[in-house]
């Protein structure tokens, strides 16, 4: 079977690559963007000192990380207070997120065995949310039903008690804070890599060339027929 694909040798490929100019500043910005979005405060500061790349005010990153951490540790009330200090609009204009946080609070109360407190909290804080917005009622019922089961690890709604639920909420909170700071919630680096994989897939149809198969080391592998 004759291949109709064009063959590009490694030598030719590397020559072509060398002709493409990439600016150092752009790469620095990408790295900074990654560090900031992911919340690596100290690394971001060090990188700024060493490369001269600017970033947004670190305090905002620190604040955001504090909120995320509070949620991840189950200190939801603390997280709410911190978000409101950062930007009172976030929870005031995002009923879905607010409900999710309140739901997490309820879950933590149930997890700690504080049944009476949980019921009172559900009645005083969560039921009004359900009245204000019917779509929350179903979620509320699911959460309350945790109290019914003795063996919560096996019940249908057991996943609510899982740490993954906290992480889910934490991610939502992080995204909301980032958006409110007019910062995009996803770092650019993954998108670049996805673009690379897509481009290679496209090129695969037309040519055999040195491609990158392992993203972590970005090594060029020789073209094969």
């Amino acid at each position, binding site marked *: 079977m004759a291949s109709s694909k064009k063959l590009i040798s490694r030598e030719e490929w590397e020559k072509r690559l060398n002709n493409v100019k990439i600016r150092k500043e752009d790469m620095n910005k990408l790295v900074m963007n990654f560090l900031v979005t992911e919340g690596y405060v100290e690394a971001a500061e060090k990188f700024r000192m060493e490369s001269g790349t600017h970033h947004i005010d670190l305090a905002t990153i620190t604040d955001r990380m504090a909120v995320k951490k509070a949620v991840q540790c189950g200190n939801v009330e603390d997280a709410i207070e911190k978000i409101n200090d950062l930007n*009172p*609009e976030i929870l005031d204009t995002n009923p879905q997120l607010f409900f999710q946080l309140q739901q997490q609070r309820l879950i933590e109360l149930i997890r700690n065995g504080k049944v*009476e407190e949980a019921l*009172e909290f559900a009645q005083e804080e969560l039921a009004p949310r359900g*009245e204000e917005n019917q779509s929350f009622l179903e979620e509320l019922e699911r959460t309350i039903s945790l109290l019914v089961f003795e063996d919560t690890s096996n019940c249908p709604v057991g996943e609510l008690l899982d740490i993954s639920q906290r992480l889910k909420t934490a991610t939502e909170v992080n995204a909301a804070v980032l958006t409110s700071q007019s910062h995009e919630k996803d770092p650019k680096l993954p998108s670049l890599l996805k673009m690379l994989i897509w481009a290679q897939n496209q090129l695969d149809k037309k040519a055999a060339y040195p491609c990158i198969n392992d993203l972590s080391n970005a090594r060029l592998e020789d073209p094969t027929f």
Partner: protein
Amino acid sequence: MPSATVNKPRPSELLSRLTSAEPEVKVRALREVKNQIIGNRTKKLSFLKLGAVPAVAGILADSIDDVTDNNNCNNDSNNAINILVQSAAALGSFACGFDAGVQAVLDAGAFPNLLRLLANPNEKVVDAVARALRMIYQSKLAPKYDFLQQKNMEFLISLLNSEKENVSGLGASIITRSCETNLEQKALFDAGILRKLNSLLEGGSLSQRDASLESLATIFRNNPEVISKFAGPEIGRPLSSIIDLAKDRYPRTRLLACMCLIVIRNASPHFLQDIGIKTKLIHILLELLDDPGQVGDEAPFAFSSLIAQKEDLQKLALEANAIDKLHHHIKKGSLHPRRYEGILLALADMCSKLESCRSKFLSLQVLNLLADALTDYNAGVRAAACICLKSVTRSIKNLSAGYFMNETIVIPLVQLFLDPSTSVQVAALGATSNIVVDFTTRKSIFVQCGGMKQLVQLAKSMESSVRSNALWALKNFVFQADNRLKEGVFSELTASLLSSLIRDPEPSVQEQALALVRNLVDGCINLIEFVFAEDGLILGAIGRQLQCASTAEIGIQGMYALCNVASGNEFHKEAVMQLLFTQMGDKNQSFVIKFLQSNDSRLCTATVWTIVNLTCPSSPGAPGRLEKLRNAGIVSQIKNMVNDPCVDVKLRVRTVLGQSMAFGDN
């Protein structure tokens, strides 16, 4: 039993802590109030009732001069800053999406203080204050901003020029809320505001772009002059930045950009008219329906504003499967009322003109869906369902097939005649008006459901729009209906009610009442007796109303009613003659001449038709009547119209003249 919220003080306890002399206690209490109310409408209401807003506003007012420079870092000034920040944040939260809160904040006199604090040296204070003011300006209760005053315009410009997002956002919010007239729009343009907004569009942050889009749309609305000045010189560049934002990654930005483009399209025939942009807008808006949040709720309304009254867009949308997509969303169920209402109205707009759209919609078996919506707990949804029904019932094909005259639809529709909301009543009447023009003989279903009696009741409503729409529905109901049905309607209405409706203070009611009479007496000679009932009450009312008709439409319907009466026997024709000639009072002419000389050809046609019936050769009294008409100058007036440009008029005139020649006229 220990309270679950041991650490959380009760609201009344918190409010008393607000009055503490110790700044730290005050700050903590303010922060606690703020944290309790954010996101919590129920708590906002209960704190409101306890008088929290005046208390917090009072603290703001007292502390307004406590932070005078940004350099003090001691405990006192920190407390002072925190008091201002927390009280501003609390007031902002009360005002956020909560009209009662906005009103309370305004009533407490906090507004001028908040404005003053925009000049405060401390950044955090300015931020909190700007945010609070922005919340107020998102409500329609916000104080009106007078753009035409020079000082105010300068202040606005300074807001927009600020680097702080919340402050420039406030500037944009003020424009979006307060700019209403063409004069204000021009003033904003002349002050260079559009250039500033455009720069925020291209170089600003996400919230600045969104705010800018809303403000631009407000300034462009119904103002082609401003639009062409904005878009003209740069040859489409500013417009292209808005078009780009319609493809932005954030749904809210896409929606606002689309809304801005639609405002431009609707105001100005020169821009955004090519098929490419039309198709793009349709696709983007249909895709935004998938958004689960507020953006998805508002998307159908934007879609409606794009396609309403525009057949070309409705056709394009049909090809883009708009009806399937809208239907798909409704089928999902448990919709937010706003979204439900929006989608129903969008479907109503889609089906308002094109039979192809109606066919498509009806092919999806939607009657049960509409019946459900008619009984929804939300008034907006019920009204929207009626409006949607009114659009689909314009389908003559399906009306003729009797598709709509069934209990699934008619029963809930008739129930809406008693709806507490007037707009729902009127919308239900609109849909009914179409449905009762059922060309099959199944109109009795409507009577059985009590619909006819309800309509007569509504004809006595205090609301003129309800009266006129009820009469409209009755008019359609008796259109070509059988005698029994008509007699039923007439006996329910009674001559005295009908004659008083003919002389109703509202012209629209008069018109519909006369049209109802026209339809009632049409067809069978026995029915003409209706107008003679109770000593000719109705006939007399018609005569009086025609004498002082305030609109052409009243004249038209009244003349056709007389025309139908004049199609009867000698007695009927003579009664009409008498009507035409009495009540001239101090006027020398009969209103007949006035109508014949009217610019409205429909009115001329109706009048000539009446003369045709009065002078029809087969009746013995025709020569005598013709003589009278000649003496009153009516025949010569008609002769003048022999070459009228309107075909209907010309033909009827020739009929009259032909008939008059049969009696040896020259």
